[in-house]
């Protein structure tokens, strides 16, 4: 068999690798002992196939013993695992583990014995799987065995995916104590790559998480399940993409593995199972961040996401912010009716919004939500006024995002331009203003954007920002009082600014012309002015003590 020949060649190479590597790791005194064990392993392995007879099969038991020998060297057990993998691959390929027509009683006994050994071996392997260090190569061995099993142990069927073995693997991976590197490797190399593995993994995850027996372990599994699920990024878009199979593909063309809806259904079930679990804030945020891009596309019925999303939306804070895009997705795609959506949206405009790191994301959505020109002007005015009120405490990056947004809205809703230009025409009105001044009619405490009286107010805040300390922000704020000649500002240009980027732009520029220097050299900077000099102390000197 050419395949096997090439495999052995490969294994020989690997063998040499390991033997070569070893002495560097180990101390000299141990090495001779190690080499003995390894040579023994190789010898045992070779003996199994040396003669055509089955008399050396007992070596398998010895190898398994080495494998399970915990206290001993991990290298040895790993090497034993490798050689056992080779042995069982060959045996399975040769059909030794299957009942054959016309086999003698003796053969059946051998077969049964071999099966037992095989189970024993798998058990040992799975024990190694979750461990740190050896986990990843052991996973490779497992997957190789999985493939061999799927290929040869058909049990008389056309297609038989070794679900049992994969379930065991996945359950170990789902265990919170499992090494993250192994889990990552599994999701990246296998789940993401192979359609059949993904299909069955989803199925297994869903089953495991809903299994009542595992009730107590569920919470711990959540994180790892999330890890595996989130790693799957590419959602197949058509049937034709389903062609990468790890185990040989089923011959029947109408098998579930070829159906896109079946795939999606498995994924949907897995996700729903995850969502039903209690999760902490961070996990929820991670999921919300992924929802439009990698979760919702899996769903055959995105409506099923509704509960999860509305729960998150009602949670408040940044969770609400993040769930916005998901809710919007449902509203847009699935015609979800969210009662008092704008009221909820308005309530999101709290003191933290302009400081939040999700600011640009929120503004992109806000821009979409308020894009309609059919919204009542009163509502739009409330949003404008509230945001402009928030700019009074906002960093420059936030102000820079708000001002062009206000411009765009004012341009779209000309009724709101009363907020920047309102002439008092009546004589009595003028008199009242003259005598009593005025209060801001806007009610910041009001929660309903339709009731805030914002449209009666003026945007004094933006007028104040026209004298912002940062020259560019001040200039930008001036667009509100310029003539509105520009159709609209592209929000994208203003969203992703922060102190760091502003500073970088300022410091990145070269000083081309000599900067102007203050013409007057102050007599005192830190010290008090002399009494007779007639100069007033600076604020710093007044409020600070310099010793």
């Amino acid at each position: 068999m050419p395949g096997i020949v090439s495999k052995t060649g490969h294994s020989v190479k690997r063998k040499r690798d390991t033997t070569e590597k070893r002495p560097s790791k180990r101390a000299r005194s141990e090495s001779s002992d190690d080499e003995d064990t390894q040579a023994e392993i190789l010898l045992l392995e070779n003996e199994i196939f040396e003669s055509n007879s089955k008399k050396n099969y007992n070596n398998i038991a010895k190898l398994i013993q080495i494998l399970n020998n915990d206290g001993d060297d991990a290298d040895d057990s790993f090497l034993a695992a490798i050689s056992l993998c080779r042995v069982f691959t060959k045996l399975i390929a040769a059909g030794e583990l299957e009942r054959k027509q016309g086999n003698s009683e003796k053969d059946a006994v051998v077969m049964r014995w071999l099966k037992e050994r095989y189970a024993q071996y798998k058990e040992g392997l799975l024990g190694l799987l979750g461990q740190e260090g050896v986990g990843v190569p052991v996973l490779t061995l497992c997957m190789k065995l999985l493939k061999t099993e799927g290929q040869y142990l058909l049990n008389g069927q056309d297609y038989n995916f070794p679900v049992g073995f994969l379930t065991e693997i996945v359950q170990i991976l789902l265990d919170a104590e499992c090494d993250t590197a192994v889990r990552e490797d599994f999701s990246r190399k296998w789940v993401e790559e192979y359609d059949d593995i993904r299909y069955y993994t989803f199925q297994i995850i869903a089953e495991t998480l809903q299994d009542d027996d595992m009730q107590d372990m569920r919470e711990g599994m959540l994180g790892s399940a999330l890890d595996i699920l989130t790693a799957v990024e590419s959602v197949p878009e058509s049937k034709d993409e389903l062609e990468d199979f790890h185990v040989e593909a089923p011959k029947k063309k109408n098998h579930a593995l070829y159906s896109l809806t079946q795939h999606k259904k498995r994924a949907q079930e897995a996700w729903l199972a995850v969502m039903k679990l209690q999760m902490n804030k961070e996990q929820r945020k991670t999921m919300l961040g992924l929802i439009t891009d990698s979760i919702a596309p899996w769903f055959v019925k995105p409506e099923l996401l509704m509960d999860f999303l509305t729960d998150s939306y009602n949670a408040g804070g940044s969770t609400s912010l993040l769930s916005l895009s998901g809710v919007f997705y449902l509203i847009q795609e699935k015609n979800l009716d969210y009662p008092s959506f704008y009221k909820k949206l308005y309530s999101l405009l709290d003191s933290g919004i302009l400081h939040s790191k999700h600011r640009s994301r929120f503004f992109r959505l806000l821009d979409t939500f308020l894009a309609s020109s059919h919204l009542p002007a009163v509502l739009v005015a409330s949003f404008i006024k509230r945001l402009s009120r928030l700019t009074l405490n906002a960093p420059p990056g936030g102000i820079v995002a708000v001002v062009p947004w206000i411009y765009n809205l004012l341009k779209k809703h000309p009724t709101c331009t009363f907020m920047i230009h309102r002439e008092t025409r009546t004589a009595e009105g003028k008199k009242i203003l003259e005598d009593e001044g005025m209060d801001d009619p806007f009610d910041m405490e009001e929660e309903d954007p339709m009731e805030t009286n914002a449209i009666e107010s003026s945007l004094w805040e933006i007028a104040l920002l026209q004298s912002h300390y940062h020259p560019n922000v001040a200039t930008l704020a001036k667009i509100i009082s310029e003539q509105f000649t520009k159709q609209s500002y592209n929000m994208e240009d203003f969203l992703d600014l922060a102190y760091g980027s502003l500073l970088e732009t300022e410091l990145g520029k070269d000083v081309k012309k000599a900067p102007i220097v203050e013409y007057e050299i102050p007599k005192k900077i830190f010290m008090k002015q002399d009494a007779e000099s007639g100069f007033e102390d600076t604020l710093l000197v007044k409020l600070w003590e310099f010793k």
Partner: protein
Amino acid sequence: MPPSQLKRLKASLREQGIVGPQKSKKQKKQNAQNGVNNEKRVQRNVALTGIREQFNPFEVKTSARGPKFDVTSNKTISGRVTKGVKGRPGVTKGLGEENRRKTLLVEMQRRNKVGGILDKRFGENDPSMAPEDKMMERFTQEKLRRHKTSSAFDLEDDEEAGELTHMGQSLSLDGPNIQDDFDDEGLELSDAEDHPSDEERQRKRRRSGGSDDSGPEGSKDEEDRPERKKSKQEVMKELIAKSKMHKYERQAAKDDDEDLREELDKEMPNLHELLRGIAPRPAPAPLAAASGMNPDRAALLSGTDKIKFDKEYDLRLRQMAQDKRSAPTERTKTEDEKMEEEARKLQELEAKRLRRMQGAPESSDEEEEPAAAEEDEEEDDFGFGSGIKTRPTMAELGIDDEDDFIIDDDLVASGSELEPSDDEDSESENEADDGEDAEFLKGLLTEEEAKRPEFLTGANAPIQETPLPANNGVNGDLAYTFKCPESHEELLDVMKKVDILDFPLAIQRIRALYHPKLKSENKAKLGHFAVSLVDHISYLANQPKQSPFSILETIIRHIHSLAKTYPAEIANAFRRHLEEIHNSRALAPTPGDLVLLTAVGSIFPTSDHFHQVVTPAILTMTRYIGQKIPQELSDYAIGAYLSILCLQYQRLSKRYIPELVSFIQNTLCVLAPTKPTKISGDFPYHEPKTNIRIVGGTKATRKLSLSDCISTDRSEAQTEALKIAILDTTVQILDAAADTWTGKPAFVEVFEPTQKTLQHLATRNNRSKLHADVQAKITKVSQKLERLLKHAHLACRPLELHHHKPLAIKTSIPKFEDSYNPDKHYDPDRERAEASKLKAEHKRERKGAMRELRKDANFIARESLREKKERDAAYEKKYKRLVAEIQGEEGREAKEYEREKEWRKKGKK
């Protein structure tokens, strides 16, 4: 309908006076006597030809009808006839024929027949030239021709051989065709080089033909022109000759002038004496000023005797010396005037600052000016000479003879050294620079000289100055010379031995030693030194052992004064520090950074709309107070310091800083003894992990200091004191902020929440735990805010931002062309228009050329036919003659024969 041909003929005959009423015999007789008849006959003939032409339908070409659409053409407008005579084909044809006969025919006839030697010698046939001229000209011609020759092997170019002459006479046969070289017009047999090529000739002919087409006037012109016009060469020659003559004339006139002037110059001394007799200080003699020649030299040349000359020299010298003294350039200004001038200058600077604050773009010349002005200003600040003794306090500190930066003193004292500022506009920057340098040096040296005259010569000599205490360092052993440190490491190295209190003096000495005026490379050195000083202030402030702020202050002021000379270097040094803060410790500034930011605020104008150093600096500060979530008391202290600094930056421009308000609010809420039930205001509230609320029990309040900005372990009491101090400072910052931003549009919106927070602090629960002083302050600030808010409430008006002129709707009326000409192409694309113009011209030329060629061919064919006919006719004639001759002869012979025969017959008979 026009009248019939006959009627028109009659009418025109009558008009011309050819037919008319019969004249009486007497009249006829009279006319005959006067010779009028003769005249009249000529006139009559002319008129008759005119009429004949007019009535010959083939003589004039008329267009059958006018232009198709009259309106699309404005030819009638420009005065040209739309319909009627377009041309005179007969006349033009005749002219063309004539032309061809003159050129083409002659060429044709000559072909393969005429060769010969041309006399191309210059002026050979010109009797007006002198023989030498002729020779000269010929020589130059020869040279020129040789020079022009492109290739030695050009077969076409065989003029090299030259002409064969003998005794200046051409060897050629004097034929009618051989003419002078320069008579181009008639020259037919030509060499391609000097004469118009065939092509050119054709074009010329065509041009004349073209002008013929235009009408009879043109043809008349042609006829009227003299046969031989001047060639280009001739014209040029004439021009050259003329200009030469003019030049010569000018030269002659100048010489005459010079002579005259010299004569006048000789008279000069007499004149001088005469003048001096009248006025002791005469104005400079205009004659002497104007003269190109020194009168003395002239006198010497003319041979005046030596003694007199010497005496004259002495006299002149004395006079010159007198002149200088007797003309004071400037009147000494009174104190008032000086003050006024200073005030004006300050006003000017303030106006410029205001412009910068508003962000008005500076024009380039304006930029030059402030630079110059500032450099002027520097002299003011650096009146090193005076003020030392008036400042004993400084002396005590050991920084006595540091450059006293006392501005007001200097404004008065050193003003006299200033150049008047009203000629600032005219003086170039260079001048200002020079002047400034000189002043700077002078100031430095005078100061040093006052104490140690040998400063520059014997720097190492130990010199004791007793009158000034401690002027040689605290320990009295401060060196006088230093190596100029060019990096911070070098600076540290140099300053190792220097006591910290002597530092300013050391800087002063380095600056004097390496003044740019003393050596050219000093400028760069001092620049590096200035940069290292910038590094040094942050280094000093970062030292665990705090150095006195008076020293830091002095160093900053030194940097400031250096910054006037090295603005770019120092700005870059500051920016480098800011970048370092930004990259490595944006939210954890060191005391050094704080001092650095303070220095930025004092060295650079913080009120500018944009400034290369100040803008990043304030961003760095607001980044801290905006982004830092304070966890420890030291974080709050740093925030307080930066807030004060921010407000100080904005003391003139009064710009709004949102982060500052949030910080104040947050600090007040966090430090308040009890947490406010409702956070008023829209700032993000951050409570630190450890509780830092004031628990009370402090005895006194104190001011914050930089040591509070470092996080260390403090005892309980210290912590409480620090808390109270921070709260106290924050309340005062709030007070200052309210002062700064009164009158701003959203004052109410900004300060109402802070007012509520203050009120919370004033509640009974909180009051009890606060120190009485702080309580009083809170109450004061709260009351003040109350007042300001009320005022702002009264002053609040709805925004009216858009009192703009309404925008005009865009029009799409097509552009209307006045005096539109349909024949012109109004192509907006310039290149395309030009291309089409060229194309049209090319087409026209091509058509013309083809027509001419065709006509030429016709002409040649006609002529050759005619020749052939002539030849044939001549042959026929000859043949006939011969035949006739022969026949005649034969006839005679026949007759003879007949006669003979007859005779024989007779004889026989």
